[in-house]
């Protein structure tokens, strides 16, 4: 009993935090989605028109689909690139691992905006990449396609997320009992097969965590597409931002946000149904 009350006390601050800053705003958004307008007397009118408008206009859902596709590509590429990095850190780096891990994370301490803007210098018309390709003669004139495209968004986001994708994979690899690899070798497994049969499946929870670490925030991303995406690279997040900041159509913005959240929930539920993360860990 005493233990229980102690846990309650410990849980109280974070619970309060979540209620105040997550549940309540979510409720406000839900309320707004049923209103006619953002300001004045229109605020008080209950309506379902916003929902009709949202689902009637295919372009909103299309953009959500595009954004999901961009987020999927970003997460996939980030995980594929992070895995060897995490593997090297965990299995090969030895005592240097802490130093190398720090070096990997240090850029993430600098401003998010700064890191994205620096990609403008790389990808821009007068940027490093264009200049380099020009000097090689690969292209005749500076290509504007390198920046302000969907690819630019993916490239930039992959760069931003790699440290965050590496960490869960690294920690999953660290948890693998190295004796299991000896056991695999003892049973006749050459190293690459031991990787496929033991290391990879046991690190899968980390891989999945890394994927969603990248996928979910990327799905709602709006800063990166605004800076390097151009008209082509626009994402669903920009649409939401527009509703709140420019169009001042808060009800529509609220609906868009709720739909986005519903999509994430559905993905997680479907995923959890097919692969139970606890099973993967063997716990």
């Amino acid at each position, binding site marked *: 009993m005493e233990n229980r009350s102690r846990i309650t006390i410990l849980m109280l601050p974070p619970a309060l935090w979540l209620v105040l800053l997550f549940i309540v705003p979510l409720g406000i958004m839900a309320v707004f989605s049923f209103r006619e307008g953002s300001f004045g007397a229109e605020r008080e009118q209950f309506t379902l028109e916003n929902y009709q408008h949202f689902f009637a206009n295919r372009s909103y859902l299309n953009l959500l689909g595009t954004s999901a596709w961009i987020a999927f590509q970003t997460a996939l590429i980030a995980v594929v690139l992070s895995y060897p990095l995490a593997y090297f850190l965990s299995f090969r780096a030895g005592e240097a691992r802490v130093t190398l891990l720090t070096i990997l994370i240090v850029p993430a301490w600098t401003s998010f905006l700064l890191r994205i803007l620096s990609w403008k210098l790389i990808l821009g018309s007068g940027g490093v990449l264009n200049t380099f390709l020009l000097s090689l003669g690969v292209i005749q004139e500076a290509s504007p396609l390198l920046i302000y495209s969907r690819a630019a968004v993916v490239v930039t986001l992959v760069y931003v997320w790699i440290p965050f994708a590496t960490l869960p994979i690294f920690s999953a690899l660290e948890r693998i*009992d190295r*004796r*299991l690899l*000896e*056991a*695999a*070798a*003892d*049973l*006749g*497994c*050459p190293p690459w*097969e031991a990787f496929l*049969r*033991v290391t990879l*499946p*046991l690190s899968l929870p980390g891989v999945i965590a890394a994927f969603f670490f990248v996928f979910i925030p990327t799905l709602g991303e709006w800063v990166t597409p605004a800076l390097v995406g151009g008209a082509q690279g626009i994402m669903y997040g920009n649409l939401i931002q527009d509703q709140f900041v420019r169009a001042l159509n808060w009800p529509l913005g609220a609906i868009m946000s709720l739909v986005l959240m519903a999509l994430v929930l559905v993905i997680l539920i479907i995923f959890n149904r097919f692969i139970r993360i606890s099973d*993967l*860990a*063997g*716990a």
Partner: protein
Amino acid sequence: MSELAVELSNVFKTFSASNARDVNAVRNVNLAIRAGEFFTLLGPSGCGKTTTLRLIAGFEQPTRGEVRIQGKPMNGVPPYRRPVNTVFQNYALFPHLSVQENVGFGLAIKRVSKEEKKKRVQAALDLVELPQAADRKPSQLSGGQQQRVALARALVNQPAVLLLDEPLGALDLKLRKNMQLELKHMQELLKLTFIYVTHDQEEALTMSDRIAVMSAGNVLQIGAPIEIYEKPATRFVADFIGETNFLNGRVVEMGTAMTGVEVTGKRINLPRQNEFPTNSVNVTLTVRPEKVGISRPESFADEAKRISFSGVIREAVYIGTDTRYLVGLSNAETLVARLQSSPGHRPGEYAIDDPVIVWFEPGDIRLLTE
């Protein structure tokens, strides 16, 4: 000439630690382990027994010397190409695989057909008496059951040599005793070569055909349990295996058939030990507590060949079937005697401060140089 399963010739293993001096885990080890033998590497922790096993398994490569399995040189051969399998200390079962996938792991890698794999996995699980556990995960099994799965996982591959690294260390005493007998039966049934690592001397004596006693990277003695116990080659071996008494002595005469030694101011004659170096003067004598007899001075029959000392009972500890007496000798040395409760000796027969005669047969004494 009997066939050798494993041979180690002049094997050294040195681990170089950064910022520290090198650690010689194994020094000049020579072993010739026969096919079908239950061979035990016995020693305290850090004696090099596990490193020796890992050298045979292939997880370590010798710094010097040669390892041969079934006559084939194994230096540079990785573990996955050696005809041996290991039962690991903490079992090292794959947590993401079911029991039958764990057991079938080695067969899956060898691309054994599905039907045969199924048959052999089932046979292995039957052998370790876990036929019903096939679909469970290792985490759902008890320690004893996990141990059996680890055994089945190794045996199913029909290795030439089975290596066991303290496989019973994590089990409770009763289960351990049962598993000792079961392992021994299994080894006899399958006619397999077992190389068994343990620090438990009783376990080693119970199960082994031969034992190699190791200390500080060296093999001190190799022999059958009875030899190791009755004829220890060094003080360490005598001390490590069971309880024993040590007395200091001085060689005063070296005859062709006997050695004259002075112990606690008394000259005694011992049968000559051939392996004992002739130039030693200061020696240690060792005798097992159960070989020591106690009599009252008035009833002691001083038979010619018996060696006897007078002493005083210092301590009497009743331990069920036996009573353990500590007897003080005239020169402040002590002897432990273990007397079984019997019609001739009732517990509590001798009390503290009783003057007694302690005696033993000359053949039960061993001379040691160190």
